[in-house]
């Protein structure tokens, strides 16, 4: 399909406003929407125009296609503020199980400007809405709970299915700009963590060029795990706050895998300091053998998710604190780094464990005595004050540094 004409048209629109946009760039955005996401060409043109308008801080100018004959008082979701009575038109992009019998339906409704959580009270007698359909909702109320806006559908609200039938491709925002509520991001899965709850399907860390955020997927029919290292477009995730950090709940989200790659921020950190603590759970550990699990399991071979796993896999790791004297970094070393730092290989660690009355403790103690209190330089990726080191090497005495310090100390005597 040829997009050059549409791209040319958009580019002209912007040059009229005094902004030059490369038609090639526009064309690739259009192609992506149409070919990958199955968006109507006219809708794609409008969406790209709006995206660029936002990027260059121009008022919305997408007009071709898409725009319906909305009434004057209709609000865009992004413009709503708590306390308002509003009329909107949007698509139900997610439905979640009601948490109380007083609620008939809850989920997320979105238009081309954004998404918002909604609650339809049982008393409202509103028609049952289906996921993927568009509705016009008149006289609903926007309110706020714990800093998160939501739309309340009550008995005075009119809900009508609207004729609109369009794909909705929301704009993604950088992780650094996410706010509580509903968020759409394009991000890479950079870590997967041990599940801390049996209802949890997966938790870990997502990152893009601007930052990282914790995510969680709860067990639910049809939910699948994300793959570490892959990039996803994540639309309409719930952004919550926990311990004054934001986190993403992906159960409501529409998730599309993306073939491109992103350079995640916080990629390269070097910390030089002393290892001041080796935490329990370091040394020789057992991991769950179930495909895709790999959790550290207890000594009794109990995996929090897959129960007893006698055919566990041995691994090495060191968890501890690396201290510069100014700041303490949570340090995590994986097997290859542990082997080169301690000189104890996985095979020899297993041998030590098998031939000693203390078993795995013996490996822990030997590793502790080899690295605790030592100066090292670690290179790696630091996320949320946790340093995942790719290399960790002993610091060596530099006579140049010694001489420089002698001069510095003696200089003022």
């Amino acid at each position, binding site marked *: 399909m040829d997009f050059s004409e549409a791209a040319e048209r958009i580019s002209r629109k912007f040059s009229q406003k005094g902004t030059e946009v490369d038609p090639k760039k526009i064309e690739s955005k259009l192609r992506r929407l149409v070919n990958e996401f199955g968006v109507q060409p006219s809708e794609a043109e409008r969406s790209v125009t709006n995206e660029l308008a936002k990027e260059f801080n121009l008022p919305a100018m997408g007009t071709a296609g898409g725009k319906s004959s909305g009434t004057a008082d209709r609000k865009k979701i992004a413009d709503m503020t708590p306390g308002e009575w509003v009329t909107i038109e949007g698509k139900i992009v997610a439905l979640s199980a009601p948490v109380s019998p007083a609620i008939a339906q809850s989920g997320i409704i979105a238009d081309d400007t954004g998404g918002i959580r909604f609650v339809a009270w049982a008393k409202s007698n509103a028609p049952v809405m289906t996921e993927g359909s568009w509705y016009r909702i008149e006289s609903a109320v926007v309110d706020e709970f714990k800093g998160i806006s939501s739309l309340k559908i009550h008995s005075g609200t009119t809900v009508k299915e609207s004729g609109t039938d369009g794909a909705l491709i929301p704009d993604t925002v950088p992780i650094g700009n996410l706010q509580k509520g509903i968020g759409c991001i394009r991000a890479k899965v950079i870590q997967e963590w041990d599940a801390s709850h049996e209802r949890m399907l997966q938790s870990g860390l997502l990152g893009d060029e601007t930052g990282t955020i914790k995510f969680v997927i709860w067990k639910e029919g049809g939910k699948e795990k994300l793959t570490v290292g892959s990039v996803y477009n994540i639309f309409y995730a719930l952004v919550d706050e926990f*311990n*004054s*950090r934001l986190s993403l709940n992906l159960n409501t989200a529409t998730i599309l895998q993306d073939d491109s790659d992103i350079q995640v921020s916080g990629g390269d950190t070097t910390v030089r300091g*002393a290892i*001041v*603590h080796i935490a329990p759970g370091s040394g020789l550990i057992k991991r769950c053998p179930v495909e895709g699990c790999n959790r550290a399991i207890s000594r009794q071979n109990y995996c929090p998710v897959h129960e007893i796993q006698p055919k566990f896999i041995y691994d090495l790791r060191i968890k501890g*604190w690396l*201290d*510069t*004297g*100014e*700041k*303490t970094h*949570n340090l995590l070393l994986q097997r290859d780094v542990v082997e080169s730092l301690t000189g104890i290989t996985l095979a020899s660690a297993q041998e030590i464990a098998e031939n000693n009355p203390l078993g795995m403790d013996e490996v822990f103690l030997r590793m*502790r*005595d080899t690295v*605790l*209190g*030592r*100066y090292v330089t670690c290179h790696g990726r630091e996320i949320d*004050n946790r340093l995942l080191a790719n290399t960790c090497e002993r*610091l*060596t*005495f530099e*006579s140049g*540094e*010694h001489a420089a*310090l*002698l001069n*510095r*100390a*003696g200089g*003022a*005597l």
Partner: protein
Amino acid sequence: MSTNPRDVGRREGVFEREPARRVFAAELRECRYQFKDGEDEKSPTFVLLPTGERCNRIFLVGTLTEKQRQGDQNIFYRGRVVDPSGTFYVMAGSYQPEAMQQLAKIDTPAFVAVVGKPNLYQTPDGAFLVSVRVESITVVDKGTRDLWVLDTAARTLDRIDMFSTGTKPDVVKAKEQYPNIDVTVFRKTAYDALAQIRI
């Protein structure tokens, strides 16, 4: 706005481990002021260094020259760890069983790396004593000791620089608490410590 955690205070619910400060025995010995940050029972206790840094935890490397088992019911170990400038008094009791066992196992003399919490005591005759409650103690080699001397000298000089120019709250507090201490003596401490390293 500053992003220094010292300035913004502790965030609710977010745990931040106190860094282990590097200080020579000669400076730690001069401490006379200990305070709590916050009203909570669990708020951390800090010893204020004369050079104007609070420390809740320190990291030191030196020679364990003596150790002694004390107490009948509550057994604890005391030790002396010597650096180029003086002596640290370390102790580990039954509330730190792991540290106590580590200390019990070490034969003197040995180079040791110690992570611990400094505490200020006043003896009945009015003298002040700073002792370090050991969190961990491991045997290390001379190379690690030399690295620690470099590190600690650099940190001490940094603090002296901050002290002379500084208006940092802890520096102001140190000037109040230690009006008779001339911090430039610690520059000499650092120099002498560095000079003892032979290459």
